[in-house]
């Protein structure tokens, strides 16, 4: 069983990020780490390969620089190899360009299954997995909370507001995985050491058959026109306790239709 997982390396959310005032996009010239929301897909893929008793997990990632720390984490968790699409030309690429590039890199891998996170924790476009499926003309299942392989198809539990849907889908397919549905393993010491020797193949846009006009800002079908700060949280209402404060609190809650 060969599972390709699309993973993104993002700036550490623990460090306060900054927007590039010129491009209005997140500054990514810092150390990148594995997007936590992708670690669930990696874990799920590793479990599927374990359950199948054979096969491997291959990572595909795209980054504007050659940063590999995030891939190293996923390799240390147990993925066998990685393809890193890395090219300065890629700065400014929109979701569809990203999907096209990832799809092209994935195409030749002979994957039985392609897994991606539902959305990245830095861009939140949330459309790349479905676009990959579109580009590759494969079935797409979204918001998976579990995947079970059954011969040449998969059974997926799709998270919904009220519970989950049972979905069956033929392979190969593209499945996006909801964050938090499995417990991603921590890279073991042996895994970290083994990861040092695992192949990471770097590819440029040209290697994948794209020219500069098709990627980056040039190829983007979208533009960020304006960025505004999120509204500041309003100061709360303070109720002084004069012995009767509970009536005011009850009235307040009733007014909010909480009780």
């Amino acid at each position, binding site marked *: 069983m060969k599972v390709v997982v699309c993973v993104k390396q993002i700036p550490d959310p623990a460090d306060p990020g900054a927007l590039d005032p010129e491009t209005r996009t997140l500054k990514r010239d810092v150390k990148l780490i594995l997007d936590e929301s992708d670690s669930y897909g990696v874990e799920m893929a590793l479990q599927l390969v374990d359950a199948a008793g054979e096969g491997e997990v291959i990572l595909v990632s795209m980054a504007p620089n050659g940063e590999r720390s995030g891939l*190293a984490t996923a390799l240390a968790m147990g993925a066998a190899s990685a393809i890193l699409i890395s090219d300065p030309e890629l700065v400014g690429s929109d979701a569809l360009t990203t999907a096209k590039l990832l799809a092209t890199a994935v195409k030749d891998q002979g994957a039985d299954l392609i897994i991606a996170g539902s959305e990245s924790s830095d861009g939140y476009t949330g459309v790349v997995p479905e676009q990959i499926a579109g580009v590759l003309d494969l079935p797409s299942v979204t918001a998976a909370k579990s995947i079970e392989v059954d011969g040449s198809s998969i059974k997926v539990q799709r998270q919904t507001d009220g519970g989950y849907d049972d979905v069956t889908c033929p392979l190969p397919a593209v499945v996006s995985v909801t964050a938090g549905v499995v417990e991603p393993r*921590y890279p073991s010491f042996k895994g970290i*050491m083994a990861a040092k020797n695992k192949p990471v193949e770097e590819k440029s846009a040209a290697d994948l058959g794209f020219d500069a006009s098709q990627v980056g800002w040039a190829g983007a079908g979208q533009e960020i026109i304006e960025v505004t700060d999120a509204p500041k949280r309003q100061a709360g209402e303070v109720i002084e306790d004069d012995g009767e404060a509970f009536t005011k609190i009850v009235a307040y809650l009733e007014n909010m239709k909480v009780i």
Partner: protein
Amino acid sequence: MPDYTPPLRDISFVLDEVVEFQDLFATEAFGHVDADTVHTVLAEVGRFMAEVVAPTNRDGDVIGSSWQPDGSVITPDSFKPAYRQMVAAGYGAIPFDPDFGGGGFPWVSAIAIQEMLTSANMAFSLWALLTQGAIDAFTHHGSDEQKAMYLPKMLTGEWTGTMNLTEPHAGSDVGALTSKAEPVGDGSYRITGQKIYITYGEQDLSENIIHLVLARTPGAAPGTRGISMFVVPKFLVNDDGSLGERNGVSCVSIEHKLGIHGSPTCVLAYENAIGWLVGEDGDGMRNMFTMMNNARLSVGLEGLALAERAYQQALQYSLDRTQGTAVGAAKGVSSPIIDHADVRRMLMTQRSWIDAMRCLVYTNAAEIDRSKANGGDEARGHKELADLLIPLSKGLCTDLGNELTSLAVQIHGGMGYVEETGVAQHYRDARIAPIYEGTNGIQAADLVGRKLPMRGGAVVFEQLDAFDHTAAELSKDPELARFGQNLTEAIEVTRECSRWLLENGAVDPNNALAGSVPYLRMLGTVMCAGLVGKAALVAAANDTGAEADFYRAKKISAKFFGEQILPTAPALAGAVMAGPDDLFALTPQQLA
């Protein structure tokens, strides 16, 4: 805001630029490792400690471990998954012999891992610490059969280890122990006796516990010379490695303690328990000494680790808590307390000592590595320095663990004294470290009795001479000139005190013992200053570039040490050279 942020940048600064551990990777012993790999491992381990272990710290304190009438001990529920995941990740094996599943990494990298583990949860960390000690014992003194039988599972952490020295009448004086070991003729012994204060002597985490027990064989010499070391597994191990019968060791009770509630401190009763000699009959104490350095260093590290954790919490609190109007703030504004000079003094004292302790402990660990990775005279030089630093790392850093966690409580004001914030836990947890693994009084005695006299004091004097150069370099930087001057003065006073102790200690040991604890503080502080001085010079040379802010902070932390902490060292000269007269001038009745 996470509870604990692994100080990875501070650690890599000390490893790369103060300890300069890169030389280790040019040796045969560590040639298979490189600095990058160490940093990658530390980043992953740090994440694990912050996300998995640190959240269990409060449970350890509030729930604690509890003893059951059937003799079992239950650790807090949250310890179990943390333990399982840590075993699965195999982080405990990193510094040990690759033949038994280890990574063969330098000890200094294990120290960095241990720092983060201990900051995350000191009570939890102790099973790993004691297991490390037991691994050390087998590695150095075990037979090939014992190594094959115990090491693989102890390296993974599936089996934990314990150290059984203490008995009711044998604490600091280990030689007074009375547990007995009778040979039965088949190579095994029957062990009988009572051990107290045995850390993780019983627990519900691991499938087996491998006790290392000090006891006397029939006709053994009195005192430390008649002590032997035995391995007593909780469950006997069959030839195929599976677990067999339960051995004759049971947990009679556990202690109720000031801190580290998560760590069970057990009274163990040995009744005809089956054991086997580790090393030779009568070598128990000598065997203990070979692993003592690592164990004492690890306990010294506890002072650093808890100071770091408490500091992170205090810093955050000082930003959140508003009180009073700071000098310079607009009228009527309630300032965050970090804007008050005295709160700054407390924070800087913590920041600066933490940086200094990390330099000291990591240097100590790297010197142990260098003594093993090199040969001949070079190895001997590193061994001597490592030996000298051990009582300083243990004694100074654990005393500071108390002082700095106390400052963290102080910064919290009344909220520090009530248990709600959790900062009081660090203060209570830290209090054990100056007591166990040889009290700090015993560390000081070791310093003046054994370490200072090495080569007639030359090991100390050579180090002080080297710091003279550091002082001269510091004096060239206008911002660090005062530090340089203070260092020169402190070195001179320390030389004088060292000479005094050597001369007068030879006449009457009490001359040296009376001033031993202040001397440990003095030499430890000067040793820190020398290392921090080096850190300051590195930082000063990096004042531009992407990390200018980081280096600036390191330089200022060092400057603070040199100007506001270092001067406390020479001020101890009076106490160091006072001799015992005043100490013994009063009769016990007069002391009452």
